[in-house]
């Protein structure tokens, strides 16, 4: 058996001199502005150019919502525009058409692009964010977008959120702007399901200690159609 395997060892050696291609394909350019807004019912053409040293194979344009597990939404549909694009050659220029239907749920969405070459080499994932807007999504009024507070002293944030059909949930999260991965200073949910709320007045008291210089209150509101509106209040702590 030793002899047999010695022979196999010899014949098994790969003696062709072309080294296998391990160079990743790349996404050369994307004409899409990070943070773009699209009105539901509209469309967006995302032109992407790809390149590879040998031969391109496929690109994946994945579009999905960034609602982070919220289960709200009945009538409106979360938009999903994922598509696989067929590519060839060493460079390719393709356009992904994002047709956002009229009833798409308003809120934040991701656009993720990656590309494979013919040998199975994979590019890094390019992640871009965009927002879908709806005329009927919740709107904030009487909201102060930036404020200054004193460390250790209680302050109140108040605003009104309105919807044309029914509000479902208001949630808030007060975070340290300098240390976003720390636990929130304060957070909570207000459940408005069950009754027909066209308007809700938010009125909460907060205190921020002197370890925080800049804070941010992030407010997310769902209506019963599944539209999500997010807004922020910048808080300077003195």
């Amino acid at each position, binding site marked *: 058996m030793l002899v047999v395997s010695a022979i196999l060892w010899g014949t098994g050696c790969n003696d062709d001199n072309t080294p296998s291609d391990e160079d990743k394909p790349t996404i050369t350019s994307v004409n899409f502005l990070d943070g773009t807004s699209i009105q539901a019912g509209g469309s967006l053409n995302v032109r992407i150019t790809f390149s590879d040293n040998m031969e391109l194979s496929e690109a994946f344009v994945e579009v999905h919502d960034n609602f982070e597990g919220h289960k709200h939404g009945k009538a409106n549909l979360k938009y999903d525009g994922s598509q696989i694009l067929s590519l060839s050659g060493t460079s390719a220029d393709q356009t992904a058409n994002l047709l956002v239907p009229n009833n798409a749920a308003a809120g934040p969405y991701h656009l993720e692009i990656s590309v494979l070459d013919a040998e199975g080499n994979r590019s890094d994932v390019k992640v871009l964010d965009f927002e879908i807007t709806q005329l009927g999504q919740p709107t904030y009024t009487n909201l102060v977008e930036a404020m200054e507070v004193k460390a250790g002293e209680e302050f109140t944030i108040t605003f009104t959120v309105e919807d044309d059909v029914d509000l479902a949930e208001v949630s808030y999260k007060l975070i340290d702007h300098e240390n976003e*991965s720390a636990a929130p200073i304060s957070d909570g949910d207000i459940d408005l399901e069950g009754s027909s709320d066209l308007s809700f007045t938010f009125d909460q008291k907060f205190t921020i200690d002197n370890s925080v210089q800049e804070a941010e209150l992030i407010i997310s509101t769902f209506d019963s159609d599944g539209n999500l509106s997010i807004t922020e209040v910048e808080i300077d702590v003195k």
Partner: protein
Amino acid sequence: MCLASFGQHTLSGYVTSESGIPLESVDVFLHETHVGVLTDSNGFFNITGVKKGHYHLHVTYAGYHAQQRDIDVMSSIDNLRFGLEQSINELHEVIIENSLEKQDLKNNPLQVIHVDAHFLKQQGGTSLMTKLEKIPGIGSLNNGVGVSKPALRGLNGNRVVVTTDGIKQEGQQWGSDHGLEVDPNNADKIEIIKGASALVYGSDAVAGVINIRPDLPKGKDQFSVGQQATCNSLNESFGSSTYVEGNKGGKWFKVRLSLLRAGDYKVPSDSFLFQTTKLPIYNNRLKNTALDELAFNAYLGISKNWGYWYARASYFTQQSGFFSGAFGIPSVGLLQHDGDFTNIDLPYQEVNHLNLSTHANILINSNWLEIDAGFQRNNRGEVAKPHSGAFGEEATADNQALKLQLNTATLNARYFVNDSNSKKIFGLSGQWRNNVIDGYEFIIPAYNTGLIALYGLGKTKSKNGWRINLGGRAEINYVSFDSTAMPFYRNGTLVGFAQRNVVFETFQPLWALGIGLNKEIKKGLFIKINSAKTSRMIQPNELASNGLHHGAFRFEKGDINLKPETAIQNDVSIIYERKRWLIESSIYGNYFFNFVYLAPSNQFARLEIDGNVYPYPEAGQLYAYTQAPARHYGFETSIEYKVLSELILYSTSEYTEVLNLERDEYAPFIPPLSVKTGLEYIFKPNKKWLDEIHAEVNLGFYSQQNRVPRNDIPTEAYSLVNANLALYLKSGFDINLAVNNVLNTEYFSNMSRYKIIGIQEPGRSVVIGVSYKLKSTPDPH
């Protein structure tokens, strides 16, 4: 004084040191019956009531080389003499045989390593496998800490067999995000066989076998209770294990309960780089990596002159969180601290493993029949919210993503036949597995597999001193699964069912052949040669996977056309042990005709519903199980030199490589070339309260690893320093202190799943363990 009754004989003799000094309290133990005695102050032992038959007598004593002798008992023997040699290495002294073949280290044609509970307690690792990493050729594939899978010579998963009490552990070992379902506290004796071991252990034993056994109160009358507690600063874990065991007149029991709670583990850096995005690690602790573990083991047995019988019941359960950055594309929002470093939040996994087995060794006409039979139930589940997009799977109320239940029935029988110039083993192995699936996302189908194998192994000695092992195995494997369909939804409305796999059934005959040679060429110098033709049965995950494997961060698809993986495997080892030196070296070269691997395809994963093709949400690139010729080769060396009677200098090194010859591409998760050098100080002071001090410093150098497959990330070279100190007190207390990664080196390991998402390996950690054993042993009369 015992009167020899008809057909019963007495074995007696003396145990001394090499220079002739009588040794007291030496363990003299009959392997076949689990009957044992201790020597008295004159080194005298006397085992009564022994039936006619072939036996192995084990003689073990701390600090000395254990001895084993084959004894054919026809009548009473009263002149047995054992002169024990002092040993250089503690690892080599205590256990002599653990393997199903009943071969000791030097007579096994393969390289075999034994470790005991003392060794494991000295090491500071967070899991059983990481505690074994000091030994060359042994590694672990890690998903953070606390979850690690065994890897032998760079191979893992379906190519490594783990047995507990002689029964192959079945727990979806192909999966890469969960570890061994074994209580590390119950692993008192671990035997690692490196190299092709398919003849006795089955076709999966391509890279080798890890045999795990507890210390059972076999042999002499005794009663003891023990307790140990361990804390690890790495994840602020606390572990506790308690046991009670006893033996009276050959009837014995053991019960052990172990608990472990660990929080989120720490890494040196406060951020990580995922592709080009820098993401935070709050307070240097990886969010949601906490874990909880509970293990229970119970044994009940009887040892008589006809042999022994024992039964085991064990249960292991672990719940561990998945790092929040390791599910989908990590984002700042997901990594925000939830205010608690010890909670286990979504997504997490639950594993539990039940093991019921019975073990017997029966004397039949001077020969021995060993039977191990068992039932295992392994439940593995992942609890997670589904993909957040509009299109995909729909969660159930309990968020049960993956739920696999694997039921396994095993029967192993081995009949040992000895005659004057040869020994033979005839074996029968049978296994039935039934896998049930549930949850909204499953990667493998429900399946049934069956296996019946017959094998024979003959051992003889040639005139010029070569011991020759020759064996063959024939088996029939059965695999079947039904077609499985998975529902997909868009915004809560059913789109349709996607077929995940087709109906499949196969009967596959396989055979294996092996030859082993070994010889003591001159005093203290042994050579071992092993060569085998093996065929590994293709497992259901390789045939029928179709889904996202979260632990591996990729979409995997099986292929029902895969053929059994056939290989020719060769090993040569040399052991030299003389005076102050102990040198062991192995080289191996395996040729696989059709190595199974996951090939990155040039397509993204898709699914088909009623003729329409959809991109598979959040799946990315499709990896397909494929076969190609491959070469697997490497070496391990270990050199120990006894500088002083208390001081040992050692150096080990290892290298392994798996090259796919068709694609000219390396396999993933292969350890880099490494050299570990250390000093070990073992001192037995003449103190009333202190029995022994053991201290060790180990410097490991790991080279860069550029031999990685496409889409993988090479790792850079690094050095690690580990240190440990153990105090063995005469009062029964053992105190262990270990410091891992003393220099707090920041590095990436090629054996870590988290390398892909840019997570470094743990930094410095301190492990403290205290154990206590209260033992009562009656006089050996």
